[in-house]
């Protein structure tokens, strides 16, 4: 017991010393903090500007005030109504949800197959899929649009312009997600698979009952990337939505920009509305977010 207390005492003393080292004022450290804070201010300033301007009157936005005299909450209602955001917001939710679901299913299956099933031509096919990561959207977007219009190959239902499929199906698979999951699945010890096979499980059951429960982290990373990509998508939705039916929020915001012109306060309110879901996702999954980026960034 005495020994244990002694250890704890030593640890506490050491920690106190370590902290005193941190607290001791050093001009060098102050400069470091100054740089960090300056960076943080610059990173946040546009967001602050967005929110404060969204609560101003038109006159206040023109005369550059830092804060509104009286917060104009009704700007949000006005933007919401005028820009038809209710519809676009719902569209974006459905599009994002559908894309994420499709992407998860297809890339979990493919990642599993590339990581754990041996079939003829596996590595060649995988390499070919990976090569698509290099290709700029400018090259693929024109033929893709023609495909969606049904003028290259026959599509079920003729043209897919202004449909949910057009906005979701092209994004339901990508080489990056498959790569990420494959790396993880391939690292799962073979003993688990051998044991499952003795129990008479096939690949699908092994995947569902053993692999998925231990793969939450990489799946979450894929999901976060898919969510952001889908919610933030702009060029493709701009091309395939000529009518309002399935127009997503980003295209709606852009149309609002070209129509609302100088109504800064409404534009800012609209911008705030579009970023809220992403911010909510970010605050709840912050750790997985940054760790996912860090590890994928390194493994690339």
């Amino acid at each position, binding site marked *: 017991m005495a020994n244990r207390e002694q250890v704890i005492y030593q640890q506490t003393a050491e920690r106190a010393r370590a902290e005193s080292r941190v607290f001791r004022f050093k001009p060098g450290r102050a400069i470091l903090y100054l740089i960090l804070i300056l*960076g943080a201010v610059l990173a946040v300033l546009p967001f602050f*500007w967005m929110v404060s301007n969204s609560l101003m009157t038109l006159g206040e936005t023109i005369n550059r005030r830092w804060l509104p005299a009286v917060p104009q909450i009704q700007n949000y209602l006005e933007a919401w109504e005028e820009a038809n955001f209710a519809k676009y917001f719902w569209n974006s939710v459905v599009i994002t949800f559908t894309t994420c679901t499709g992407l998860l299913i297809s890339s979990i299956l493919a990642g599993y197959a590339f990581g754990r099933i041996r079939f003829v031509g596996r590595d060649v096919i995988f390499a070919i*899929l990976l090569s698509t990561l290099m290709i700029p*959207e400018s090259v693929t977007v*024109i033929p893709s649009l023609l495909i969606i219009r049904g003028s290259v190959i026959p599509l079920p239902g003729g043209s897919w312009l202004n449909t949910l499929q057009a906005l979701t199906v092209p994004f339901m698979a990508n080489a990056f997600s498959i790569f990420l999951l494959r790396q993880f699945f391939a690292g799962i010890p073979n003993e688990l698979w051998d044991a499952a096979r003795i129990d008479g499980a096939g*690949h699908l059951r092994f995947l569902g009952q053993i692999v998925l429960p231990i793969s939450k982290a990489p799946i979450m990373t894929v999901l976060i990337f898919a969510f952001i990509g889908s919610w933030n998508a702009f*060029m493709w939705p701009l091309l395939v939505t000529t009518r309002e039916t399935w127009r997503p929020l*980003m295209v709606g915001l852009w149309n609002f920009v070209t129509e609302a012109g100088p109504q800064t306060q409404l534009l*800012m309110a609209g911008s705030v509305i579009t970023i809220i879901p992403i911010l909510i996702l970010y605050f709840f999954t912050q750790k997985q977010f940054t760790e996912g980026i860090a590890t994928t960034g390194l493994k690339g």
Partner: protein
Amino acid sequence: MTAIPAHPGAPKSSPRSVSMSRQRIKENLTGYLFILPSVLIIGLFGLFPIIFSVYMSTLNWRARKGGFIGLSNYQQALGDFSGVLLFVAGILLFVAAYFIWNRALRSSDNRVLIGGVLAALALIGGGYVLSSGWGQMIAAGDKRFLNALPITLFYSLGTVPAELFLGLVLAYILFQKIRGKELFRMIYFLPYITPAIATAVVFRNIFSPRESSLANWALSAFGIEPMKWLFEPRPIINVIFGTNFEGFLAGPSMALVSIILYGIWTYVGYNVIVFLAGLGSIPNETYEAAEIDGASHWQMFRHVTVPLISPVTFYLALVAFIGTFKAFNHIYVMRTPNALGTVDVASVAIFDTFYKMNNYGYAAAQAIILFVIIAALTYAQNRIFSEKVFYG
């Protein structure tokens, strides 16, 4: 590709080879079924478009598919093929100069002098050939498209080094047992994840030409006259120094510089996160050894951190570079008619050819040209910098 672990269901030597082979067929089928959805989608929207773009680029395809016109679309974009040849020859001379110089540095003293002279000659000759080739191309080709290429390059050179430098500095500071590290990291990352359309709309307001705009307020704090920012097509050097350079030498327009600032603001946080992870993987003993040798903070940064982090820097540079050549959304949102096309990077120019002018075949040809340029630059970047990367 990384090693793939031994096949889990690999047949162990067994007398029942008939059932084994049936199992192997089943295994193959399962594999194909599992990858089918992904292969279909990526094949249709990722791979097929490349081949189809090449095919489209040889057709006279304006909204409606037309006849075969060979390389006319490419000729329309690039002007004159002899100009292109001259231009490429100029670049090859630059490459030659680089190699001669590298060789010369490694050899004996008086060879350095000869090598230096040769390299300088190759450089001057390359510059001359390149600029006359470019002149021919501009004279005969599509000015809007050709000008988009140096604009894209300005955008890349303006954003990538700055965001890498700031990212590394901030990450290095954050790595020094800083209080509130998590909070700083979270804040820096915010611009990267928020929708580019929304933040670009805000920056349109911040960089508006009004005297009361936030950017002009910041200038006035330093006693500088208000500027027109996104509405200013004049090159930034001309605006600041009142000089009168024309063409490529004049550098990016004020409007493009505003967009570059936005680009840096967006991507620094991403670099901070990846650099932080990279810094974590540098063994502590290296720093301790350097400290024992009496290295100062700056020396440690310069001689331990920078070389050891170079694989990460290289990776980030490559990703950022390709990214800037693909950049579209925020530039599309932040461009104004007043900028007179001085911010139209290649992807925006291609989009206009296709979306506004409905000239599909021509847009496809432009996209293929861009693709070839990206591939060539990526290859060059790989060759030049992979020698300088230190893999511990």
